[in-house]
């Protein structure tokens, strides 16, 4: 069976579709869960019926959305097996654990207490109900932690050793994986983006009410909490965005270069604040990378290494090697050129093949010698194992335009939301927000923008990691299952139809529920 790029494309397309649909539903769950818990806490303390209604209204929105998140989530989990079966064996020893822990610790917590939060108003005490709402919110965010542990490890594999006996990577340090700086940054950045999405959605729905001159008290109070919540989220997004950039610069320099359209680095590299890429630019021609750009001097060096004069390697630097960099452990090293990495990868692969031929042979001196030698070649070269599957330097570069534009769209929208939330907070504080119809309109338009922002972040993370599924260890073309691309395209189309129908149905139901308002919702 020959692996065609078509199979890899189909598998990636299907995974991207599922992940992006999943991320349409999940961020709202992450943030709205916490907001609902805050509203219910207000109810628990004040005993005002108003807060109960507020809690219930947002719970209904949460529930409709939650079902869709669950529907897309299960496919993601199983897709690792169905479509990425090589990957599942090669790193399953590490990757499976966080998924299992997510199920045991977080997902059960979320769904069990969600049932109480949603159906339990007349069945359990107020205190138990409040605790359940908090546990639902905590469960959802805890869930995110374990999933991002898994994802963080793909970006920054650590705490493992390769075992040639089983031809796979095996876990050697659980805590190193769980508390990896990449994971912590990713968790913070993803979860707070969920908080931001929830804040914007709440403000937008309430703005619509205010435009319609309905639900005034409900809307003003919801906006008050949501704008503070949103400002908190965006502050945290800036912090985690910065730490993410720092981890990326250490572990995925190629991704950082693609994010910035940086082909040749320098000491004191500027940050491209806005730019239009030159579509003719390739890694092997001398075209200028940009048709137009606005730069901020030395900022990229600072963002990446906290030093205005540090060297940030560009795409061609990484391919050519020859510069000094600090590895994960802080040791200074000379960067290898692409061809050398491929050579080392091939040595590792050959050593593994030899190991494989001898490992099941009867014991004896010859076997011991061969295995020991193969092992030493592996130890020396395994860090570049994944390069043995790449043929040309081009294959080691992610799609620059997609990575660059996604990153800049995310950053620009982030800036927009800082401004938006400050204005929302201020107008609300001055009690004039309901008269500012222009702002209420903008609030509604901001909903698609916040989703674009959140999705763009994931595009940067995942497209920017290409060609790797596991950074440097395994590229996508060695990760897929041996299914024919026709089968994968068929399931892809099924998922497109199913998820799109699901999304349209969800939106129609949501709009209807929003139209009914907090007073119109019948509670069972």
């Amino acid at each position, binding site marked *: 069976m020959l692996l065609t790029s078509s199979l890899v494309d189909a598998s990636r397309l299907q995974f991207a579709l599922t992940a992006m649909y999943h991320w349409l539903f999940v961020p709202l769950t992450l943030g709205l869960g916490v907001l609902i818990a805050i509203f219910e806490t207000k109810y628990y303390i004040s005993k005002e019926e108003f807060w109960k209604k507020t809690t219930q209204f947002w719970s209904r929105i949460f529930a409709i959305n939650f079902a869709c998140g669950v529907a897309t989530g*299960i496919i993601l989990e199983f897709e690792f097996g*169905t479509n990425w079966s090589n990957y599942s064996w090669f790193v399953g020893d590490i990757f499976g654990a966080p998924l299992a822990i997510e199920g045991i610790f977080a997902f059960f917590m979320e769904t069990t207490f969600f049932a109480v939060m949603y159906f339990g108003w007349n069945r359990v005490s107020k205190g138990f109900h409040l605790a359940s709402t908090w546990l639902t919110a905590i469960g959802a965010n805890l869930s995110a932690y374990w999933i991002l542990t898994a994802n963080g490890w793909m970006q920054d594999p650590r705490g493992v050793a390769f075992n040639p006996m089983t*031809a796979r990577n095996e876990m050697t340090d659980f805590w190193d994986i769980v508390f990896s700086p990449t994971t912590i940054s990713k968790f913070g950045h993803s979860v707070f983006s969920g908080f931001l999405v929830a804040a914007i959605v709440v403000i937008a729905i309430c703005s619509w009410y205010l435009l319609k001159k309905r639900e005034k008290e409900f809307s003003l109070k919801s906006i008050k909490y949501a704008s503070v919540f949103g400002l908190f989220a965006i502050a945290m997004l800036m912090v985690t965005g910065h730490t993410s950039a720092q981890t990326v610069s250490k572990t995925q320099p190629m991704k950082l270069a693609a994010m910035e359209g940086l082909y040749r680095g320098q000491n004191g590299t500027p940050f491209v604040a806005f730019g239009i890429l030159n579509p003719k630019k390739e890694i092997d021609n001398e075209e200028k990378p940009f048709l137009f750009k606005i730069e901020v001097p030395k900022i990229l060096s600072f963002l990446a290494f906290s030093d205005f004069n540090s060297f940030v390697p560009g795409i061609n630097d990484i391919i050519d090697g020859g510069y000094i960099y600090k590895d994960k452990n802080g040791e200074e090293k000379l960067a290898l050129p692409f061809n050398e990495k491929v050579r080392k990868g091939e040595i590792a692969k050959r050593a593994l093949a030899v190991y494989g031929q001898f490992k099941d042979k009867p014991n004896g001196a010859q076997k011991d010698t061969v295995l020991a030698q193969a092992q030493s070649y592996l130890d020396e070269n395994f860090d570049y194992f994944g390069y043995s599957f790449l043929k040309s330097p081009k294959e080691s570069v992610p799609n620059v335009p997609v990575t660059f534009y996604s990153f800049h769209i995310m950053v620009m929208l982030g800036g927009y939301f800082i401004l938006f939330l400050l204005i929302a907070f201020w107008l609300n504080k001055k009690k004039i927000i309901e008269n500012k119809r222009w702002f209420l309109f903008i609030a509604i338009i901001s909903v698609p923008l916040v989703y674009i922002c959140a999705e763009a972040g994931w595009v940067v993370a995942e497209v920017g990691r290409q060609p790797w599924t596991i950074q440097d260890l395994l590229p996508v073309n060695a990760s897929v299952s041996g299914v024919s691309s026709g089968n994968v395209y068929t399931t892809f189309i099924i998922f497109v139809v199913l998820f799109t129908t699901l999304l349209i149905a969800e939106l129609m139901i949501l709009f209807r529920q929003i139209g009914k308002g907090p007073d119109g919702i019948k509670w069972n």
Partner: protein
Amino acid sequence: MTTYHFLQLYWWAIVSILGAVLVFLTFVQGGQTLLWGTAKNEDEKRILLTIFGHKWELTFTTLVTFGGAAFASFPLFYSTSFGGAYWLWILILLSFVIQSFSYEFRSKERNLLGKKTYETFLMINGIVGTILLGVAVATFISGGNYAMDKMNITTGSSNIISYWTNNYRGLELIFKPFNLLLGVVVFLAARTLGLLFTFNQCSKMEGEASKNLANRALSKVKVTGVGFVLFFVAFVVCLFLTTGYRVDTASASFNGINGPIVEEKFAYLHNMLGQWWIAAIFLIGVVLVLVALIRTVFKEKSSFYLAGLGVVLAVFAILLTVGFANMAYFHSLYDINSSLTLYNSSSSLYTLRTMAWVSLAVPFVILYIAYVWRKMTQK
């Protein structure tokens, strides 16, 4: 026994418990099949949707956790079965995906597809989903058409570690009589449990609709329950007559991971007879199910929990005989030495040990689930 092998057995047992609980929790799927036929009007449908709608997430979460635990402890199974029997697993997934939003969306206004479609989704999940789950479990015994070689990662043209050797990609598994038989057993078990739960809940409720449902559930249990028992007996007979495959750990070439796989007639019967405690769990399970059905049919006493416990024990015992005693728990029909055993498919000692610590949390999870269940179901 080495610590490593002990942990492999331990994790097989954990995955087996999850699988057994999952089969029990398909009472939700069984309950969904009552929407058409058993429920005669909207009021009755609403009651069914309420009592099962408060529980569906539990089944769903168990399925996800089962997947996660299988991945963490036996990644080669995840990789071989899911990646190989592609369509079987995709169909199972789809049948669960269409369930997940149907409860919430069905009763809402402007839900795009209409009530009937969401009910159809729930029916498909209830019938097709349970049958296919049974088929998937049956492959533990009947095997699959695949070849597996971990060293394939080092080959140039095709580096697929395990691949399916026919183009049906698992669809063919659905049409094997033995697999289908277990599929029907799981479906009937789910429906029987669904009827028992309906009876259990509705007989406590006030009102005409719930009384009607309780009575209808009771009379339907007589037919479905008997069908379940008959098909189950047929399955057990087939299971005990089936040839199994074992890794020969006594062989000189066994190295703790790989070894020669040998064929053995009546292997599963031998496993039961040779491991008395598994046989005991199995018998207790079967007796509990029978007692529960007899109590329901003849004394009209609600016996859902008794039957549920019985199903959990019986399935647990069957899954143990499938993996314990050096069995190849998913044998290859293409190349017997590619077969998956606990030895060659498990995670490393370090991971299994770490996850064993994690598994200590499971009783607490079960405890709070049981607590919430009681709180939410007693009225």
